[in-house]
């Protein structure tokens, strides 16, 4: 959340309310909705850490406007976030451990676990797939690409399940 706010403020100094609207516009269906309180709490925590600076613009006929701007330190933190590369393969280690455990315990058939998991993955894939084919998606490429990313992961997971199954089948022979 913090990093997203920094990214939004990096463009131009922004009023807290505008910030909230920008956030809503871009991430409403993807991320949980924020209320004004949460935004202001986050912003004041960032101000405290010296990442943003608050200034007040006096307006003649309206209440004064408080505008947040990125500090030098804030810029550095943002840059550091961008520079940080995601490392390592992501594996559903939960399921891996479960599968291994099932094999060890001898009380559960691992292939049944695989079947159940495959069904689940396929169901999710089905959900994502139907969603991705909704007409509105063509106008919303940033959402589509997120869904497709997830689908590719699921596809990989499904293929990995095939490998697991093959391993157990061969072990059984």
């Amino acid at each position, binding site marked *: 959340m913090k990093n997203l706010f920094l990214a939004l403020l990096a463009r131009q100094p922004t009023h807290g309310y505008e910030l909230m609207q920008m956030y809503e516009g871009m991430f409403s269906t993807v991320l949980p909705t924020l209320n004004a309180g949460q935004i202001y709490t986050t912003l004041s925590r960032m101000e405290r850490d010296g990442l943003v600076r608050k200034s007040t613009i006096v307006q003649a006929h309206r209440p004064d406007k408080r505008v947040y701007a990125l500090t030098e330190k804030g810029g550095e933190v943002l840059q550091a976030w961008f520079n940080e590369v995601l490392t390592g393969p992501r594996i559903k280690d939960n399921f891996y451990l479960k599968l291994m455990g099932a094999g060890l315990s001898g009380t559960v058939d691992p292939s049944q676990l695989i079947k159940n998991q495959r069904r689940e*993955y396929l169901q999710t894939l*089905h959900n994502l797939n*139907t*969603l991705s084919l*909704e007409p509105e998606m063509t106008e919303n490429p940033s959402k589509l690409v*997120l869904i497709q990313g997830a689908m590719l992961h699921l596809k990989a997971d499904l293929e990995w399940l095939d490998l697991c199954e093959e391993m157990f089948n061969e072990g059984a022979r």
Partner: protein
Amino acid sequence: METYLLETKQLTKVYRNNGSKVHALQEVDLAVKPGEMVAVMGPSGCGKSTLLHILGGLDNPTSGEVHINGQRLDKMSEAQRAVLRRKQVGFMFQAFNLIGNLSVGDNIELPALVAGLSVRQARKRRDALLEDLGISDKSRNIPAQLSGGERQRVALARALVNQPTILLADEPTGNLDSKTAYEVLRLLRQTHMQGQTILIVTNDPNVASLAQRVVFMRDGRIINETILQERDDTKTLLVELLNLEGG
């Protein structure tokens, strides 16, 4: 008893290859309900294409029964099966398989004309399908002038022109990049939503997951099958997704 559009009983296909027997299909029981979309999934060589060919009457089983819309396919001669195919079966292939020397329009009209429709009727249906699939302007082109996605649309239009009982699709996106594959999947779903019964044979989970039911095949046998549920609250899905992925 439930009525099936397509049903196989103990379907078996054995190839002879240099004296040794290859069991392409072993005792396959499969049933497809009207309006259903079924995917047959499995690695290459599992017999899913052979199954599709037999279901479409392109090949004959060694033993077992195939019923399509109440007619028994496996007892028919090649010519009888051809006649049955005209009205009952629409094919979509991985390699598009459009006829290269016929224009797009002629490709689509051909099955209609073969099925005995008048030229005028065939043209009417062709135009409606071209319109539906968004390729009205390509009618006079020949397949070689089209992109892969456009060709598969023509293939779909051709498969649908006789309003077949069942649409059989063999790896319909196998030859396409992900963007055009997406387009073709959309059209397939749209077709299904309009009530078309579809059977897809594929190795791609993306394609398979579009179906209501996925049947898994290994070594000529059906090993498993999964029924997929439609979810209404797709809106919350994305939120879950990012949490899931982010978490």
